[in-house]
């Protein structure tokens, strides 16, 4: 299945793009998508530990199973205020 991935803040700078889409097997997890993204954009790899992941508008862990049509956002720790 195809999953759309958006980048925010420094992640967009490191990727050189605001979004991408990756193909993963049915039943893939957030972690599988993150790995595919890091393969494509290796400059983001040092940020993996602090990376936050949302599916839709909710935070999810790397073991969360995805379904067709899910939209993922990857970003660094937030800094509002």
């Amino acid at each position, binding site marked *: 299945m195809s999953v759309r991935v958006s980048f925010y803040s420094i992640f967009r700078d490191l990727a050189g793009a605001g979004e991408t889409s990756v193909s993963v097997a049915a039943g893939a997890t957030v972690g599988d998508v993150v790995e595919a993204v890091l393969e494509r954009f290796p400059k983001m790899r040092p940020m993996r530990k602090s990376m936050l992941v949302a599916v839709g508008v*909710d935070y999810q862990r790397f073991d969360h199973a995805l379904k067709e049509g899910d939209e993922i956002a990857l*970003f660094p720790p937030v800094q509002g*205020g």
Partner: protein
Amino acid sequence: MRRELTITAGPIDEAVLLRARVVPHTMGAVVHFLGFVRGDEQGRPITALEYEAFERMARHQFDLLFDQAEKSWPLDSIRLVHRVGRVKAGEASLWVEVIAPHRAEAFAAAQFLIDEMKRVVPIWKKPI
């Protein structure tokens, strides 16, 4: 509970916000907080901060925080304004108001909202 969230690229007009304040006679405490952009970031001078939000998610996460605050304290009202885009040093980037029966609840809820916002609401800033 009254709740108002504004995410705006325009300046925070405190006079307008204060005119819209409604304090019912059962409420004894209003706490409001203004966060300003400082002219330095980690010891280096800056002229502004550029704020970016993942707005759809930010609104949802603020809603969840407002829900938690409403469950935790007997609040009458939460109003919060956060700026996005370029905010010059010396300008306000955040305005929060909590109205509650007593000061302890109002202070605690305001502190909670700001602390949790900095942990979960997807907004970032870049020094200019």
